[in-house]
Structure formats: structure tokens, C-alpha cells
């Protein structure tokens, strides 16, 4: 492949949402390697603040890999190497002096499979604020937990059983608990790695509703396999294919008039 094939089409150019909102995250010429294997090719992308961006694409296309470079979760994989620039608020997150623990407090993450801690519902939410020293005392902590659970739309369902195990909740409730846990540390960005792939349609609808409610306060990035989901929740859509960011654009435009043939084929269900 020549360098031309790594070029990203913008639909429209530039996408409207990027011009309307301040940029939160900018990636320039990012390559990600697993050992010798190159998982991301020369990716450049701007992600707007206070909006939802969706990464779509077939399995193994690098969308989750790129998502994990944003909060440096890839650091846990010894063979993984990232080159290029990724900036959050114009600050290089791969700079030597950057504190990765602080970065992850600013950039929360919700995982594919709900993974609450095997502790009480209260403890699940309180863990983050506690290790960062965000609460002054016990009542303050209770306030943080209550507010986070309310924001995650879980409060009404769990307010009478905060001391029961978080693992005892249903799948959808567990995922919302994980969102509450991410919100509790007051992040600026929330990364969601296929948050609904293990949930039934009703729980999925509930999560999508929630994303819609909270997007005014956060920069949300969601990786999804469901095109309908991307169309429903996101403002910006980025289509990945074989480690290349093929096309990025306003969601309503890209789903109606994609420019690249590959995007068109994927959206219309011809592959992937």
C-alpha cells in the first residue's frame, strides 16, 4: 500500500461538528504496532468536545486499539508501541513527563464486558474518588456516589441496596454502574469500548439514552459494531478498515452519502 491509501476522506470537509465544537483530542500521524505488526496506519483525527464520536468498522480494524491509545491502556501490553502525536487539550499524552495515572483520571473508560469490582455498589462508585482524594469526608463521598449514580440513571434502581454486591446486578445495570464509576472521578473524556455488545436491546436503549443525556458535559467516544447505534447516538462517525481510518464525517452525512466505496459497502452491509 502506498501512502495515498492511508489518506482519510472527510465528509463533508471539514465535518460540521468539528468546526462547531472546540477540539478535545487531536491525533496526528499515529501508528500503533504490536511487536512487528502494524495495527494502525498513519492516523490523523480531531475529536470534538461535548459531542459523541463513534468509531465503526469490521473486527480487527484497529478501532479499539486506537481507543485504548487515548488513555494509554495499551501501556499494559508490553509489545505495544505508539508513534505520532496524540494530544488532549493540546497536551501531548505520550510526553515523558506526563503522569499516566492522572491522565486516566481525566479520561474514563467503559469496557466491552461490564466489569464491576466484586464489592458493594457503593464501593464500586466510591473507589475512584477515594484513590484520587476527591471527597472531603463521608457525607461528601455519599454525595458524589449519589450524584454519579443519578447521572448514570441507576439511582432509582439501587438506592435501597447500595451495600449489596455490584456483581449481583443485571448486565445492563452493571454497565450503567461502570459508567457511574467512570463519571464519579469527574473525567473530561469517556471512552466506551463496545459498551452494549453484551446487553439485550432494552438495556442497550437505556445506555444509548444515557449517552445522549450526558454528552453535553463530556467528550464521549464510542466504539461500536452496530451501525444503527452509531447512527442513533453519535455526532461524528469515523470508519476504520484494516488499520486505516478511511473516512470521517458528520454522522447524518456519512450514513447517507459516504464518499469512499469501502465505507459505502460496510454501511450497506456488503461486508464486515
Amino acid at each position: 500500500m502506498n501512502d495515498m491509501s492511508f489518506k482519510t476522506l472527510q465528509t463533508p470537509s471539514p465535518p460540521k461538528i468539528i468546526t462547531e465544537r472546540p477540539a478535545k483530542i487531536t491525533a496526528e500521524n499515529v501508528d500503533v504496532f504490536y511487536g512487528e505488526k502494524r495495527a494502525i496506519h498513519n492516523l490523523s483525527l480531531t475529536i470534538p468536545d461535548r459531542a459523541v464520536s463513534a468509531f465503526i468498522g469490521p473486527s480487527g480494524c484497529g478501532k479499539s486499539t486506537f481507543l485504548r491509545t487515548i488513555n494509554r491502556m495499551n501501556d499494559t501490553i508490553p509489545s505495544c508501541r505508539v508513534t505520532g502525536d496524540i494530544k488532549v487539550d493540546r497536551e501531548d499524552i505520550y510526553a515523558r513527563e506526563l503522569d499516566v495515572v492522572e491522565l486516566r483520571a481525566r479520561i474514563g473508560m467503559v469496557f466491552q464486558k461490564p466489569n464491576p469490582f466484586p464489592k458493594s455498589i457503593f464501593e464500586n462508585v466510591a473507589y475512584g474518588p477515594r484513590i484520587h482524594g476527591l471527597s472531603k469526608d463521608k457525607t461528601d463521598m455519599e454525595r458524589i456516589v449519589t450524584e454519579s449514580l443519578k447521572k448514570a440513571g441507576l439511582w432509582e434502581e439501587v438506592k435501597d441496596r447500595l451495600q449489596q454486591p455490584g456483581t449481583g446486578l443485571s448486565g445492563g445495570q452493571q454497565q450503567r454502574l461502570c459508567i457511574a464509576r467512570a463519571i464519579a472521578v469527574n473525567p473530561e473524556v469517556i471512552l466506551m469500548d463496545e459498551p452494549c455488545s453484551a446487553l439485550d436491546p432494552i438495556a442497550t436503549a437505556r445506555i444509548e439514552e444515557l449517552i445522549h443525556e450526558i454528552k453535553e458535559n463530556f467528550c464521549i467516544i464510542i466504539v461500536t459494531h452496530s451501525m444503527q447505534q452509531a447512527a442513533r447516538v453519535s455526532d461524528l462517525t469515523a470508519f476504520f478498515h484494516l488499520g486505516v481510518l478511511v473516512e470521517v464525517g458528520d454522522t447524518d452525512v456519512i450514513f447517507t452519502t459516504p464518499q469512499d466505496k469501502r465505507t459505502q459497502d460496510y454501511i450497506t452491509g456488503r461486508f464486515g
Partner: protein
Amino acid sequence: MTKTISTAQRYSSERRFKALGLAAILITAAFLAFLLTDIVGKAIPAFTTNAATLKVTVDPTLVDAANPKAGDYQGLLKKAWQAQFPAVTSRGDKKKLNGLISARAADALQDAVEADPSVIGKEITVPLAFSSEADLYLKGLRSDTLDERDVAWLEELKAKGVITSGFTTSFFTNGDSREPENAGIRGALIGSIFTILVTLAVSLPLGVAAALYLEEFAPKNRITDLIEVNINNLAAVPSIIFGLLGLAVFLNGFGLPRSTALVGGLVLALLVLPTIIIASRAAIRSVPPSIKEAALGVGASHQQAVFHHVLPLAFPGILTGTILGVSRALGETAPLLMIGMIAFIADVPGGITDSATVLPVQVFLWSDLPEEAFKARTAAAILVLLALLFCINALAIYMRNKFERRW
């Protein structure tokens, strides 16, 4: 048609396998039942004893009221004992008669007089302990060293109705002794407990720390691979090698006191360390990575993720490994012989730096002695060892369940 035959074959094969499995379990259970009944049957004589009630006049010429400690209780008791058999007059016969009572039979008399010196000059009744051979005969067991005249005397005594038999706790309260009737398990039991405590205190923190480092923090390279291979090999090293190592390092190198629970515990800690490390690593590895990722995702540092989430979840597994290791250490004899814990020690150890022996070594020592009565002691010591193992396992299972119940 062929189809029906093949299902029939499959069902009969399943039945055969079930029958084999059942047979295996029955055979194992039969062996276990045989072992236990045999040991319990042999151990019973160690928990009962025979005593003769003897009337003794505390002669003021032999026991001075001003200083009752210095009295000749041995002489006093022997006189009273011989008085039971007026027909025995010759010096040789009297000596033979004295052989039927325990070497420490006078202790009870001395205790009684020291407790209440006002009895000096009066007649008191004390229990008289028999020698182990006489005791065995009275329990109706074989005793090779008694001849016809010994037997006749004991029968004479029996006819007088002065012999009482009953349960005795002396086996649990005495230390080791050369005389079987006085030998008890207390020294070895306390020694074992001290040794195991030292082993646990050393090996559990070291093992868990090593496992955590190797599993969570160490870079994956040739050196850590080499360490891993060596740990696995160490788990298979014969235990006596660890005894030699302990002898060279702890006794000759550091100059720690010989045959103590401290050194024994350290040697056993080396022995169980590989087991604990391997089990702990497996337990840590089995914690789902999603939990660690969740912690990292909310901004926990690597260490916080490990100590707040991975370690608590791995703890039941670590405990299981530790129990396996400690149970092995509790039954270990060979390495302790190397560091001198085979010495004859009559005193009950008061601390980890006192000379001590442990239960399996005590079993080994007693099983080697010629006196018939030590056979019962040996079996009883095995029972105590099994009971201790059982207690440790029960405690560990209880703790494991308790930790697991925290979801």
C-alpha cells in the same frame, strides 16, 4: 442397525468407567478405614493407666518437716510397696519387686507431702504408678519382660482390689521421657506449633511478595524465565537437601541455635516457599484481567490495582497453596534431622529459640525404641499429628470460604 450397536457400546463403556471409578473410591476408603482403625486401636493404651492405691506412713525420720523437699520419698514409697508383699524377703527379690513400679512413682507422694506438710508422721493414701511393663500386663497386653513371679505379684495385688484403672491426660501434659509410662507428646506438639508458626511467618509474606512481583511487576525476559524454571525445580527437590542447606546456612553460617523451632521453621519455610509461590502465581493469574483494567481505567496506579483488587481476589487461592505447603511442612521429618531436631529433649519448649522436637520426629524416635509400651505412644502421637493437620486444614477451609463470600 450399526447405529444401535454403537450406542449400546457407548453406554456399556460408560457403565464400565463408572464401575471402575466406584471401585477406586471403595479401595481408597477401605485403606483409609483400615489405617485409622489400626492406629486408633493401637493408641488406646496410651490414654489409660493403672494405679495402685497405697497407704504410706510418712516417717518423720525420712522426711524432715522443716525441709520437705529433701525427703527420701523414694525410700518411703519402696518401703510401703514392699510392705504389700510380706512374703518377699530376700534382697534380690525386693529389687525385682521394685522393678514393677515406675521410676517416677514417688513424685505423687512428694507432691502430696509438699502440698500439705502437716501429714508428716501420719498415714496417707497415694496413687502408685506402675512401670510400663506392669501397666501393659494389667491392661491385658503382651509384655515380654515380665516373668512368672512378676505376674504372680501383680495377680496378688489385683486380688487385693487396690488397682484402679482410668483415663490419663499425662500423655498430653508430659514431655518426652526414657520411661514409656512417663513419655508424653506435649514437647513435640508445642515444638511443632512453634515451628509451623515460624514457617508461616517467613514463607507466606516472602512467597506472596515473590509471586506478586513475578506475575505483576517483573519484566518478561530471560532472567525471569530462568527464575521461574528454578522455582518449579525447587518444588521437586528432595526435602533432605533443604535440611543440609539449613545446616550450612542457618547453623554454620549465621550461628543460630541448634535443634530449635526457629531453625526448623526457617528450613521448612525454604521447603514450602516454591509451593506457595507457584500456587500464589496461579491464583493471581486467575483473577480476570478485566478487574485490573477497571481499576486502571478509573486512574488507579498499577500498585493500587494490584493491592486493592487483584490480591484480595487471589487470596483464597493463595491460602489453598499455603495450606498445602504447611501441611507438607508439618509432616516433614528428614530436613529436621539434619539440623538436630532429633535430639532427645524432655523439656517442653518455651519459645522458638529453645531446643525442641516436632511430632513426626517424635513418632520416628518412639517407633525406634524397644520398649513395648512405646508402640501405643507412637500410635497416639500419629493420631495427634493427624488431628493437628485436620485442625489446620479446617481452619484454612473456613478462612477460604470466609474470604470467598465477599463476592
